[in-house]
């Protein structure tokens, strides 16, 4: 029983990271119709920048803020590259974002290195004991901050003027244009937000698992799975998707085999794509005429 609870707790922790990565995907997909294959690299950029800035002697708060800023800039650069592209077909955008992810990994190889690094925990190494399971302070921080980010995004998109404008744009680009909403700025903002969420995810994750230039690949793909499970057109579906994914992975690793842990995300992805391509919430929505 204790083991089960422990597995669930660690599953929830990782699940929130997947949720953050997944939300980055849905934000960009909903505003531009593009699947950003370099999303995972934004996560990596957040964690790795912090590691090296701290090594360079900067105080915590400066290193973290700069990491987030750097990643946001990387997001805006991608937006600009897409903006300058001659054609925006499905396949050329897939290859473009894949190329960007390769370039970012290459950049990380050059600027950082190929080694594994860890960030020290922000809140020390202590832990709570709940029902015989250990919940580290860092894990609790991950859960806490992730929830805050989700709430913040919810309020931003549903309640603020800018946020609602962004939602309107994703629903119908033409009427948004007619209402004088600056599409380009909105798109740029979406990419920046997506990158910021991802980098925070990277910062939260780094103390728990180590970080290196390559973690973006798997993390990005799993985050994408989380987004698809929740439904790509549901901005907050990724949260549920991420949690389901995190917990399932944890249970599989604990009870079946740790070698097949990574397969969970992709089996789930295939399952959703074949049976409920709109995500788990798609059947609950009223049928549109």
């Amino acid at each position, binding site marked *: 029983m204790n083991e089960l609870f422990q597995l669930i707790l660690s599953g929830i922790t990782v699940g929130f990271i997947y949720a953050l990565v997944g939300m980055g995907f849905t934000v960009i997909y909903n505003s531009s119709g593009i*699947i950003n294959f370099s999303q995972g690299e934004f996560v990596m950029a957040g964690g790795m920048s912090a590691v090296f800035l701290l090594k360079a002697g900067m105080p915590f708060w400066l290193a973290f803020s700069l990491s987030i800023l750097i990643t946001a800039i990387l997001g805006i650069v991608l937006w600009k*590259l897409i903006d300058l592209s001659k054609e925006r077909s499905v396949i*050329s955008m*897939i290859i473009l974002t894949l*190329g960007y992810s390769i*370039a970012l990994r*290459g950049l990380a190889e050059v600027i950082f290195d190929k080694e594994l690094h860890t960030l020290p925990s922000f809140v020390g190494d202590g832990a709570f004991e709940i029902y015989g399971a250990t919940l580290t302070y860092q894990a609790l921080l991950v859960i806490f901050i992730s929830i805050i980010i989700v709430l913040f995004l919810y309020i931003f998109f549903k309640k603020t003027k800018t946020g609602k404008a962004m939602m309107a744009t994703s629903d119908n680009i033409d009427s948004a244009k007619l209402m004088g909403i600056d599409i380009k700025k909105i798109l740029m903002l979406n990419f920046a937000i997506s990158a910021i969420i991802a980098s925070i995810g990277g910062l939260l994750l780094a103390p728990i698992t180590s970080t290196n230039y390559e973690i973006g*690949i798997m993390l990005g*793909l799993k985050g994408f*799975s989380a987004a698809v499970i929740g439904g790509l057109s549901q901005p907050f579906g990724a949260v549920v998707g991420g949690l389901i994914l995190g917990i399932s992975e944890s249970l599989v690793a604990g009870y079946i085999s740790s070698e097949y842990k990574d397969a969970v995300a992709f089996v789930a992805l295939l399952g959703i794509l074949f049976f409920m391509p709109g995500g788990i919430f798609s059947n609950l929505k009223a049928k549109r005429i």
Partner: protein
Amino acid sequence: MIKRNIDIIILIFILIVAAFAMKNDFYYEIAVLSILNAIICIGLNLLIGYAGQISLGHGGFMALGAYISAILSSNYSLSPMLSLFIAVLFMGIFAYLISKPILKLEGHYLAMATLGVGIIIYIIINAQGDLTGGPDGMGVDVFKVFGYEFDTNVKWYILSSIMLILVIMALKNLIKSPYGRVLRGIHDSSVAVESVGADVAKYKSYVFVISVIIAVVAGSMYAFFSGFISPAEASFNRSVELVVMVVFGGIGRIYGAVMGAVILTVLPQLLTSFEDYQTLIYGIIIILVMMFMPKGIVSLFDKLRKNGAGS
């Protein structure tokens, strides 16, 4: 007859001339790898360019087939040709069964499904260590046909060159035929094709199976050639590499696929002097081509031909 096949003649010429430029074994390795990649890309191009299906998991399919060839011939002492035949049969059926649910999806979702299958294959190959040798890979016995061993680089260069020429000729014939007309039609308007009595879903399935079979044969050949196979061949990186080659070269063009494969196989070698910057430069080149030459490298040649014809 000559005019129509001038491209094949030029290709044979290039292959022969290139043979004399092979300074050492390493050159041969790159050449054979380029040719085999070109073959895989021609098949993948059929899928992406004509059937309009993006596969981000072709590395997985290719490697699974190659592992079957390798395991049957090296661990169970079946003849390499028989092993290859069984691998093709198995993967053909597997691809056909998978194609039914997958090809119901479109665009991004289709790409994602192929990605999912490819990675699952990768994970399984890694995990089943006793059968596959796990993450470290496994050795592969030499390729023999009726006792004749393909044990030198020159023999492999000739063999793969012949395979490339046969594949190109077969595909050129296919595109000209009624079957090929259906494929070209699907690219333009699958509704139009459906309205003349062609079951589009069936054709898409067949193209999927064909592209997998071609990849399995070329991938198996590569395993036999290098005497080694590892799960990296099934990785997402490998699948991405193949798709990038096709798109970089030019979707829907046979020679686009060939050029993309050759350039992107040789390029990393040319970049070794830049050592650490290899990956970065590779990524930047892909980005620039996608931004400014989305129709691929082959569009440069089109422009040259147009200008030449106009003047």
